[in-house]
């Protein structure tokens, strides 16, 4: 006679499911993941949840819940604006890492970079990513501008957002240029010398402009400190404000332009 088992031992899969259920049912879990989160219990792909995913996420709610169908075509935007923003985030993260190993002094800067490359774990890789990412961001912001122009996306009601975009392009160039000096090698110093000499020809205030930029009459330790603060604090602060206005205006002006 076969033995009847009333309570068979739960299989590993059943136990796993039970654990997941209890975690997802807990108060802590539900306090962290708001309704519509794909991590919440019983998430289904319903129109309601699709809206909640965007509305209830601090990152995604930069986006509206719905967008024009043509706007999600990669061939229209080439993702250039989004990638510029993404590269800015990437540069912020790698830049914070680099700040741990860098002193903006003429006597220390170059050696800090050298030892960052040789004796810090992943130091060389992160510095490379920061450098190439910066060049890539200049390129992507520039291409984004060209894309917007060729689509006529600067036309009413988006005129002012175009102006903000040009400001963002200028700020991107300035961020890249101020960062250029920081390694304090021959390339950095003389590139900046060429650049600041040019700015010294500003009419009327030429020499004053140059003095303010260099913190003296020649490139030196003061220049390095000045450009360091501009690079890691002031310009990022300003560009974030302009980016916030830029993204906000995209939505206020009726979303992305087009279709053509």
């Amino acid at each position, binding site marked *: 006679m076969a033995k009847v088992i009333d309570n068979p031992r739960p299989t590993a899969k059943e136990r796993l499911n039970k654990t997941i259920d209890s975690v997802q049912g807990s108060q802590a879990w539900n306090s962290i993941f708001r309704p519509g989160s794909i991590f919440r219990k019983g998430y289904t792909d319903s129109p309601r949840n699709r809206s909640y995913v965007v509305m209830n996420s601090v990152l995604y709610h930069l986006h509206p819940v719905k967008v024009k169908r043509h706007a999600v075509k990669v061939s229209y935007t080439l993702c250039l604006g989004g990638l510029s923003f993404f590269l800015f985030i990437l540069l912020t993260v790698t830049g914070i890492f680099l700040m741990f190993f860098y002193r903006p002094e003429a006597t220390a800067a170059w050696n800090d970079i050298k030892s960052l490359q040789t004796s810090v774990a992943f130091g060389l890789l992160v510095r490379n990513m920061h450098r190439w990412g910066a060049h890539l961001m200049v390129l992507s912001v520039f291409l984004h501008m060209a894309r917007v122009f060729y689509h006529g996306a600067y036309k009413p009601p988006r005129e002012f957002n175009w102006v903000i975009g040009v400001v963002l392009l200028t700020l991107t160039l300035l961020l890249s240029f101020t960062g250029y000096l920081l390694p304090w*090698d021959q390339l950095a110093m003389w590139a900046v010398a060429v650049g600041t000499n040019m700015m010294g020809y500003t009419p009327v205030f030429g020499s004053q402009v140059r003095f303010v930029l260099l913190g003296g009459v020649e490139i030196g330790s003061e220049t390095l400190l000045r450009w360091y603060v501009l690079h890691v604090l002031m310009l990022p602060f300003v560009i974030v404000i302009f980016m916030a206005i830029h993204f906000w205006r995209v939505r206020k002006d009726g979303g992305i332009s087009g279709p053509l």
Partner: protein
Amino acid sequence: MTEIPEHLLKRAQAAREKAAADSGGGADAAGGEAADPRIPAHLLERSRAAKAKSEGDGGAVAVADKVASVVAAAPAAGGVPVGAGPGGHTQRLLTVVKSGSIQDVKATPVDKVHTWPHLLAVEFVAALACTAFLFFFSVFVNAPLLQLANPNQTPNPSKAPWYFLGLQELLTMFHPMVAGVTIPGIALFALILAPYIDKNPSNKPEDRKFATSLMTVHLMFWAVLVMIGSFFRGPGFNFVFPWRDGLFFEL
């Protein structure tokens, strides 16, 4: 007005099918509607009386012609409003007023999709691809780090970062104030003013041939200058051919 969500369309479709299925049996049940407990007894009484009257006047009337029979019966009933739908309902739908006729609806139909997953998935893939590209490029190509800065030793040539090399190239042709301030200043200012100068409301490429060509010339102007400055300038910022004299360019 702008669109009808998919799930509502589905729901409407299901309701329509259900109604179609019900109406088949409704015609048969119309005669024995007394069983429906939701309709007050006096209303049922009135509708039955009206029906009996109309049948008396016009003979046998099919259930499908009931509306017509009610209209015909109205004068005979002496001004008492009567009406009977299937199941003894006494209300009739006179008209449907669509929202567009009484509201100022400005929105034109727009084809929209949910941001999640349609846009976020694309963005995620783009961000991943970008990170992967940057990662592998950085693994294989090192950022330059030359000798320690030395104010007493000017490298030959000294070049600005690549995006300023167009300006440096202009320096070879114009006075520094023109090349370094006036021309880039005008270019930047023109760029800022572009939407206020360009009064053409169309964004169709075929309507914007002038604007498109002007911008292309502008971009090409800078691109060519940057390329010359980057690759075709050697010691003393003299013109060189990179395939003959080598490359004098650091990123």
